[in-house]
């Protein structure tokens, strides 16, 4: 299809702003419209996988326990912020902010699996779904008669995704896991943070990375399987993702180097073993010294990137140290551990009486790449992310105005979108049960009275 004439003549910036315009998202079709996902998942790993599909327009039904819902609803920083109500049965309780990000656009069904009627409902849902995601202990659903093998008999086109800690097989299969265990035992801690000799210790990635990222590659795999099912084979699939596996995938070159040389890679703080100068400098002054928030009183930090030879020359000129430019003229002179630990303190001397904005400005003025370390307030108030729809003030049907993250990627013709952040526990019971199971109003009321839903 030829591009519209007016689009053709625009500048590139205008062209991008037109085709990716976030205001037009709802005028465009959805990729997964008509695909149904049943997600019986808790915490982050499983829910986020289903959420990525829901963002693309899949009808995602989240099944959780009645009344209190899943544990993530009760997880919120310092137990302070909550969104009310939790459910129609508990109007005085709220959902914690930990629930954000992993549950947009979903329909919420509450179901108590321990009762036989609930299993009947699950079987009915499974017969009508394209994707089934679960993260119960491996083999539990199989025992209950709603596992991958039973699904395949009823609905051979279903893509069954199991996600969890250590996987369903192998010596550690019975071990429990959390995101942070994946990071710790998978080796991610050991290479993040400062070295012991610099007073540092192995550090956690601030996000629940193994969960959210694991959900993302599971979602990718599901999309690939949908493609294979619809265009090639007509067959469903059984997929397994183990949380601890993600960590080894992230360790890329560290594993290869260990295998070749036996060297166990260590932490190098805010510097970069591969490139120099490409590190984060401590600036001596705070940008907001009079703020009441201790986060803003902190001194600033700024990334400075000048690893190419001429950039490094410019940098040395800027800090007025021609001797450094001469001594470390080539990249191989600079990148060694000794050279790096000698260069950065000199750069930090330059930054010692400046705020991060001042360092950033000085670098930009001299044609050097830099980026101040921003906190979540500085990011949230930046126009860039709002314009691109990455961050948005969402007028949520249940909770009103909330600031939330949008989809991570932009598609010009079939964009992903956030329609609602989440809903209370069991908000869509009537809709789901009458639509997919054909239950009458009195039957649903009966199930509710028996505390099955």
């Amino acid at each position, binding site marked *: 299809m030829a591009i519209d004439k007016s689009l053709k003549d625009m500048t590139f910036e205008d062209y991008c702003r037109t085709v990716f315009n976030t205001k037009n998202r709802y005028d465009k079709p959805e990729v997964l419209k008509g695909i149904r996902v049943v997600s019986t998942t808790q915490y982050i790993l499983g829910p986020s996988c289903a959420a990525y599909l829901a963002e693309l327009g899949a009808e995602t039904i989240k099944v959780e326990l009645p009344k209190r819902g899943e544990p993530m609803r009760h997880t919120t920083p310092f137990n302070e912020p909550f969104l009310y109500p939790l459910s129609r049965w508990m109007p005085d309780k709220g959902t914690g902010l930990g629930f954000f*990000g992993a549950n947009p656009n979903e329909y919420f069904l509450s179901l108590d699996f321990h009762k036989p009627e609930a299993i009947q409902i699950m079987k009915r849902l499974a017969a009508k779904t394209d994707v089934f995601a679960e993260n119960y202990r491996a083999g539990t659903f199989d025992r209950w008669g709603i596992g991958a093998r039973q699904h395949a008999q009823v609905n051979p086109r279903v893509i069954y995704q199991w996600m969890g800690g250590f996987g369903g097989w192998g010596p*550690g299969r019975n071990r429990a896991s959390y995101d942070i265990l994946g990071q710790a035992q998978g080796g991610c801690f050991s290479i993040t943070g400062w070295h012991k000799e610099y007073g540092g210790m192995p550090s956690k990635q601030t996000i629940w990375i193994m969960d959210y990222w694991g959900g993302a590659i599971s979602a990718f795999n599901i999309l690939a399987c949908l493609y294979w099912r619809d265009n090639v084979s007509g067959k469903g699939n059984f997929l397994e993702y183990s949380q601890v596996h993600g960590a080894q995938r992230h360790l890329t070159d560290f594993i290869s180097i*260990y295998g070749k040389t036996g060297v166990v890679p260590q932490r190098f703080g805010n510097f970069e073993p591969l490139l120099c100068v490409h590190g984060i400098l401590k600036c001596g002054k705070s940008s907001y010294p009079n703020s009441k928030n201790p986060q803003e009183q902190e001194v600033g930090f700024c990334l400075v990137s000048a690893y190419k030879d001429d950039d490094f020359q410019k940098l040395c000129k800027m800090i007025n140290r021609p001797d450094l430019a001469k001594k470390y003229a080539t990249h191989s002179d600079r990148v060694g551990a000794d050279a790096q630990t000698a260069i950065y303190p000199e750069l930090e001397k330059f930054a010692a009486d400046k705020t991060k904005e001042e360092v950033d400005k000085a670098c930009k003025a001299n044609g050097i790449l830099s980026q101040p370390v921003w906190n979540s307030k500085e990011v949230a108030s930046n126009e860039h992310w709002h314009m691109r729809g990455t961050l948005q003030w969402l007028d949520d049907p249940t909770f009103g105005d909330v600031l939330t993250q949008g989809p991570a990627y932009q598609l010009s013709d079939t964009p992903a979108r956030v329609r609602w952040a989440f809903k209370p526990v069991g908000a869509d019971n009537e809709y789901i049960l009458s639509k997919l199971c054909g239950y009458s109003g009195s039957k649903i009321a009966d199930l509710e009275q028996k505390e099955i839903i």
Partner: protein
Amino acid sequence: MAEKWRTEKKRPTIKVLPWPAIPAPTVDEVYAGVDEKRKEYSLWVESAVRQQFNADKPESLDGIRVLDMTANMEIGHWCSSHFSELGAEVIMVEPPGGDPIRKLTPFGREEYMFQSKNGEKVGARYLSEARNKFSVTLNLETEQGRALLKKIIPQVDILIENAPPGHYDKLGIGYRQLSEINPRLIYMWVGQRGQWGPLKDDAGNLDPTAQCSMGFTHGTGAPVSFGGTPTRSGWWLCDHVGGTFSAIGAMAALYARERFLGKGQFVECTAAEGVIRIIDYNWAWQGMDGSIRPRYGNWDLAINIYAVNPCADGQIMVGGGHDRLWFRIWRTVGKDKPELEQHICEDPKLRVVTDRLPHYMQVETYTTMCEWTKDKTRNEAETALQAEEVASGGVSFLDEVCEFPHYKYRGHVEIVDDLNFGKVLIGASGFIGMNTPGRIKWVGRTTGQDNEDVFRRLAGIDREGLTAFKKGGVI
């Protein structure tokens, strides 16, 4: 402090044992003593998904062709790895002389690089993301190079690039121009912060630019009061996460094309936005009451107990937020030090799950916990906690990770015997599945190894033409 750093000269020589130093456990050892009913499910999953049967199974993206034109950045390579692991034909289009990442190696040490049969040395960072990919060289700054690209484009499904914003559009090979040649083309731009908008990328931006610009670095590391600073991730985290999201974006576009759209589209994904999407509750919290997410070291703001704390020989992770696990953890501690169990379990302020979350309660919990862990090695603590089925484990270093029996048995780390580079230890594909598993077939190619194959096959260039292009600096 620099003087304290172990200098280059004093580096010890290490005797390298072949991996695995200790053989992986056998099936009989793993399932010894497990009753038939429980064993049955595990054995079924194992027979369904074990990687050794991969070669007999189909690949879900077989027949899809991806051009990875990114250079000097990991996000594009990471994205195309998803496609190559699942069977797509991924061709890396590198500038003549190769992608600059090929030359990168920690601290510039050549002994960490891998040498191919033709003598080319390639850094491990590049090599681990060159899995199952072909390599061609093409100079897109020349007119002939662009003409050659346009010859290939009608046969390509997905194109990935990371040129400075608008650069390829100016050169006549942007989405606007290429979609006229091939309307079914999915054209993806990847980068750090974006190709449009007030903060669009400067040429040359690399991770951790994205980490710093979206709040990750500020939130990682210990609080100031604990002597900490903002900390970047030890690997190019934003590139990895952004790469995965860009793969989802491209895959969604591909699926949409086949399903109803019938045409390709323009896709964009950035490293920073990938992590903005997944950085928990930062934005909701900021929007609600203006809170800035603080650094909280190896503890968690929203769950207690859920942390990595020091022990006798390193750090140990213990996790158990809700009551069932909470009491099991303290029961374990109480076996050695009943006074600690008593101190916590009798504290009325720690009785309800939600009451344990404020900062001073977390300090109390972990101080008490460390009284127990400080005399325990990682292994002792882990064994004691595992006996009560509590999620726990020591902080492992790379050697321990590669030798961890569970990972070895499941093949999370594997040796690929490559045609070019010999035996390379590598992190395996994360796509484990019954019918269409991901797999690693070869590790990587030397610079431009597939020039002849690809250009003859896809562009119909004959041998004289190739020689002329080579002389002219086009390939």
